[in-house]
């Protein structure tokens, strides 16, 4: 496993995801991807679901990827990487590997559309089959590549173009799907949540390193604050990610072997959810008098879930 030292050292790792891509200024995807692909010294084969990352990083004749890279469709990043991994096993068994001296790791990236929704079956199948790969969900809580439609990851109350706020609507009506727990329920050896940024960069890089050195299917759900559709200033991406953790809207934890839960960060003083919500245009309508009840509901749910995580961790089962 690669030792993740200090930031200066880590930042000097030869870049496998190069600049010059076309992600929005302030997009968290690039930060997450760079951390993940640089968290191992082994060679990589990467697959990417259709989405922001894919359309912005490999527009012919250019690419940002200095690793072997495959994009098939929106819903099959996990199936595609499972095929590549199977070929690696087959050629290894037949002594036909191309570079005997290199270890190869397999990573798939998908947005929440390609992971929570349309690609979920493919991810569930590849995980159940035990392929040796890391799947990273770049969770920006909506279909941002196509202009900000809702997904099953969109949090309740958020405005999206298909769950708009309106005269009689407070926006998204359903709770965010708990995909991390669903992935843990597959019995995957390692599942974790993460956020990019300055405060928790090491948590993300260490989790990626751990996942990549684990044999079997591993999953990281990385919150990816979206300046364009969450409606905050591009320079606030890191602050928004940190606030998601400090409010426990997006707690940092990991689950090993499908059951052993460890909370990786406990806010000293849990910040009220208003702090997180008020900084994003997608929630601005919740601060109208008629919608304030929903902020209270969101707070209650966040408190309940945080309590649940802590109890599960204590129980150690």
């Amino acid at each position, binding site marked *: 496993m690669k030792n993740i030292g200090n930031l200066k050292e880590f930042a000097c790792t030869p870049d496998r995801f190069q600049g010059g891509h076309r992600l929005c200024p302030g997009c968290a995807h690039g930060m997450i991807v760079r951390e993940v692909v640089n968290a191992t010294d082994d*060679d*990589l*084969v990467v*697959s990417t679901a259709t989405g922001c990352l*894919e*359309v912005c990083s*490999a*527009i*012919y*004749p250019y*690419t940002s*990827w*200095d*690793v*072997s*890279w*495959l*994009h*098939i*469709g929106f*819903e*099959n990043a996990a*199936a*595609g*990487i*499972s*095929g*590549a*991994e*199977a*070929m*690696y*096993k*087959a*050629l290894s*068994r*037949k002594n*036909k*590997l*191309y*570079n005997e001296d*290199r270890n*190869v790791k397999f990573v798939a990236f998908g947005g929440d559309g390609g992971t929570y929704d349309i690609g979920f*079956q*493919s991810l*569930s*199948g*590849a995980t*159940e*089959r035990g392929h040796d790969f890391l799947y990273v969900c770049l969770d920006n809580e909506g279909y941002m590549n196509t202009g900000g439609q809702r997904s099953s990851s969109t949090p309740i109350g958020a405005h999206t173009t298909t769950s708009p706020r309106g005269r009689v609507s407070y926006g998204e009506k359903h709770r965010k799907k708990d995909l991390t727990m669903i992935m843990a329920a597959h019995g995957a050896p390692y599942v974790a949540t993460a956020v990019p940024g300055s405060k928790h960069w090491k948590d993300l890089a260490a989790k990626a390193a751990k996942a990549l050195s684990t044999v079997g299917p591993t999953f990281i759900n990385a919150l990816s604050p979206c300046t364009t559709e969450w409606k905050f200033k591009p320079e606030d991406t890191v602050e928004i990610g940190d606030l998601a953790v400090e409010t426990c809207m997006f707690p940092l934890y990991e689950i090993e072997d499908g059951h052993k839960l460890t909370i990786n960060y406990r806010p000293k003083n849990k910040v009220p959810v208003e702090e997180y919500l008020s900084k994003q245009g997608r929630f601005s309508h919740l601060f109208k008098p008629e919608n304030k009840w929903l902020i209270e509901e969101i707070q209650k749910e966040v408190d309940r879930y945080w309590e649940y995580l802590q109890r599960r961790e204590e129980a150690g089962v």
Partner: protein
Amino acid sequence: MAERYELKQKEVWDGNMAASHALRQAQVDVVAAYPITPSTPIVQNYAQFLADGYVDGEFVMVESEHSAMSACVGASAAGGRVATATSSQGYALMVEVLYQASGMRLPIVMTVVNRALASPLNIHGDHGDLYLGRDAGWIHLIANNPQEAYDMTLCAFKIAENEKVRLPVTTNQDGFLVSHTAQVVEPLDDDTAYKFIGDYKAMNPMLDTKNPQTYGAQTEEEWHFEFKASQHKALMESPAVIDEVFAEFEKLTGRKYNRVETYKLDDADVALVVMGSAYETAMVAVDKAREEGIKAGLIMPRSFRPFPYNEIAEKLKNVKAVAALDRSAPMGAMGALYNEVSGALAANGQSSIMTNYIYGLGGRDTTAQHILEVIKETEKNAKAGKRVTDLQGFINLRGPKLSFN
């Protein structure tokens, strides 16, 4: 190293078993598949070969056909020999990824057991799935019996993986009529079969990580057209390689295949275009017709894609009337074979009288007697020198007569 499988000079195999042994002998590196009737036995047979040590590649039992073809794409791009099998609804679920496989120029081989498309649900043979994949950028080869299912599958690897082609290939056999009908098949021994196909020749493998590769990049209006045109060019130029492979196969086995197959066509006034198991039924009908003094003959595209336009036109040069028999619901048009053959004739300034018959949907029986009736109708057109029969008829359809003009 996989165990050698001792085969007899003559085996009694159905089409599924024949295709399974061809996959085994190709020593495929990755098979990713999902079982569906009537191709399920191919997937089961392959699993058993693996369990008995006759295969040493990876067998990925995915959770859907969409993932089957997606895993095939990942595996093929990674750099090794890849195959799968499917039918009907499974084929339909794969369609999105079929286009992606061919667009990335991945030489995947898929043994298709043709079956009707729902709704209504039907597990029996017709060419609805084959026609669905018509424009997917794959080479489509047709096998009329178990021997051909075996032979075409061996040839498919050699065609697909040829560096001038590098396109995915399907081999097609009719559901149940071929897939579940046991006949004598003369297989090659394992070593000879593998030697014929040859070792897999890698091109731009992702697993050569010292030379990273990009598969599935985005192209918009500046490049998409050029990519699709070059893919089409590869298909249009693949006949040279298909012919080469068929010639080499003939040298090895004595079994001669052609991109256009014919039966008693040389002096024919009347010709039927038909592909699949019905071709053999039609041979019986042609013999009967000739006993009755009708100069009838048959023609079949062995490669449905690339479609052999000019070869078909050339062979139909002296034929007065042609009936194209399509085993797929035409849904608002003439059947695909009618359209392709009419186009081929028109392009070559030929004016045989063309009619279309729809037959055998969902496994509906089509007998030699039925086809003899079609020959007799077609002869009326030949004699009249113009079309005097319906443009589109239906063979062995129950209820009041249905036809379109």
